[in-house]
């Protein structure tokens, strides 16, 4: 690790009013965010919400139509060459050379970044990844989980200060996901800043801070308790028989903003506690249903945010 790395707590990524459209489809709209050094910053949102586009703008792969920003202090519009030297970007689709071996892929990366002794660096990375003995295996023949680990290994080989991971664990089994996240935490502890996009809720909870983005707009950001608090959701957990028909009845009643089944219970939430209670008053009289006060989960918040933003979007 370079000794001159700026202290944790200073800004690693800062963007303001970032916008991007492809044709007449606005993919990212007026997005502002701030990521501190050494943080794991989770980027959540449904498919097509603009997560990938935002990551690509941060690392200089896409030119924003509007707005400004810096990554590691370099301007994302004018200093892309410098950004590329210090940022590792792991694409959503496996983008190492399938027809090169593990060793050859890593050597290629090492050479492009002008690392000294590329063969030794690649060998050391293989050792770290736990791929020793498989150096000569073609990258294309690895399983999904190993491909992700190799891609991460290639990304961190040049020791970037900022790591951008685009849905790194999509399609990876739970054990491999857990190992992957342990690795991310280790890197962050060493001072690397990590910006990671995902749509797994459990992964959101592994991040220091999260941002929720839907339809190109950033709807909430902060630590998980902050995001939950910001939502001002009043939530009840309802249990009882035939919850599906109850859910159908509740949906659309003024004051009920979200109805979502959770296993054998139903989460019912509203942004205005008074209106929600009024709406539920009749239902609470039913003896077969039991209502209990509950704190909203992150998922409740996201589903609510999504339904709100969809109204704006359409």
């Amino acid at each position, binding site marked *: 690790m370079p000794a001159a790395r700026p202290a944790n707590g200073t800004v690693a990524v800062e963007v303001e009013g970032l916008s991007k459209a492809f044709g007449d489809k606005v993919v990212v709209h007026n997005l502002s965010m701030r990521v501190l050094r050494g943080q794991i910053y989770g980027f959540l949102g449904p498919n097509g919400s603009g997560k990938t586009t935002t990551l690509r703008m941060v690392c*200089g*792969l896409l*030119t924003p139509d509007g707005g400004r920003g810096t990554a590691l202090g370099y301007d994302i519009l004018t200093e892309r*060459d410098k950004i*590329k030297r210090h940022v590792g*970007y792991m*694409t959503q*689709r496996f*983008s190492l*050379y399938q027809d090169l071996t593990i060793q050859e892929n890593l050597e290629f990366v090492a050479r492009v970044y002008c690392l000294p002794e590329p063969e030794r660096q690649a060998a050391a990375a293989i050792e770290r990844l736990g791929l020793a003995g498989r150096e000569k295996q073609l990258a294309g023949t690895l399983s999904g989980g190993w491909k992700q680990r190799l891609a991460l290994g290639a990304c961190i080989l040049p020791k970037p200060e900022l790591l951008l991971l685009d849905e790194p664990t999509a399609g990876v089994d739970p054990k491999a996901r857990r190992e992957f996240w342990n690795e991310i935490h280790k890197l962050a502890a060493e001072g690397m800043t990590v910006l990671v996009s995902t749509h797994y809720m459990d992964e959101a909870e592994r991040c220091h801070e999260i941002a929720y983005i839907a339809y190109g707009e950033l709807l909430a950001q902060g630590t998980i308790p902050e995001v939950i608090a910001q939502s001002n959701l009043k939530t009840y957990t309802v249990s009882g028989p035939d919850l599906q028909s109850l859910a159908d009845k509740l949906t659309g009643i003024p004051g009920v903003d979200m109805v979502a089944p959770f296993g054998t219970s139903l989460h019912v939430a509203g942004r205005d506690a008074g209106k929600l209670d009024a709406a539920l008053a009749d239902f609470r009289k039913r003896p077969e249903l039991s209502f209990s006060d509950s704190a909203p989960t992150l998922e409740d918040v996201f589903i609510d945010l999504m339904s709100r933003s969809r109204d704006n979007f359409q």
Partner: protein
Amino acid sequence: MTATTAARRPQSGALTRTVAMFIKEFVQLRRDRLTFATMIFIPVVQLLLFGYAINTNPRHLPTAVLMHEENDVTRSILTAVDNTGYFRLTKVARSEAEMDHWLRSGTVLFGIEVPVGFERSLRRGDKPALLIVADATDPMAAGSALGALDGILQTALAGNRGLPELAAQPAAFEIRQHRRYNPAGVTSLNIVPGLLGTILTMTMLIFTALSVTREVERGTMESLLAMPIEPLEIMIGKIAPYIVIGFIQATLIIGLGVAMFGVPVLGSITLLAALSTLFIAANLSIGYTFSTIAQNQLQAIQMSFMFFLPNILLSGFMFPFAGMPQWAQWLGEALPLTHYIRIVRGIMLKGATLADLQGEALALLGLMLLAMTLAVRRFRRTLD
């Protein structure tokens, strides 16, 4: 139940599935604009282009004259030569060396030399000889023109009132033809050097034409663009290995040409190697440029093919270059193969030196730099 239905009517299922495939292919084809364009472009443009450009009985071939004496008689003869329609007097040489240089460099296809004392010998009835040197590297180009020369023996002096006594007399002089470089008119001496260029063009174009589109299609381009590597570095790194491969190919073809077809290498082999390398690099650069323009590998191959066809037909490989109309010759000049064929024929068959071929070498260099500049500028540094 479905299984029994299918078993009863196996053909209808096959038809439905075939139609499903047919529709899918057609929709995909329609979506690829360039493929659609090539379907129209290849037949129409190429047919018109080559239909008008190719001429197997070339006329107005560039000819140099070396006049050791100039008078009424020699002027009449030159006019007669011009009137055959096969020769176009483009250069007047001051010495034999100058004429040889033009022949070696391919500037002219014929040299006419009027010897000293031609008129005097003519008047004395000594039947003087007019020397015609033909560049016979391409037997097809020189053949009909030389055949037409016999006719002027009868007519050259017929209209000349200053020489009434000679006008009546047939064949007062003779024409000595000298088919230089390929006196026996062996086709392989012409074809083998041409094939060297053609084979190199085809293989080199395809090698690099696929190189960028392959990265895009396999998704590796996204990673590559996020790395600190410049378009120029990517291009040179991608072209260089194929220069070595092209060089091996060239060595193989020349070796076989010499060993099996008896094609000579009269000029410097070092010069041939150097200019072949330049030609290989030029074609690789053009292929690479296609690669930066095409959106997928199929398009890149189509572009290479569209470029390859004029290379074969308009470069002077298959049909005489000088026989094409002027516009087609200009098009031909823009193709690297045109220049390379002149270089290879020049060095192998004519013993040409760099001084004879510097124009062609500069043209190759220019085309290569043009393609490289275009490629680097076209290279998309972002995913926008």
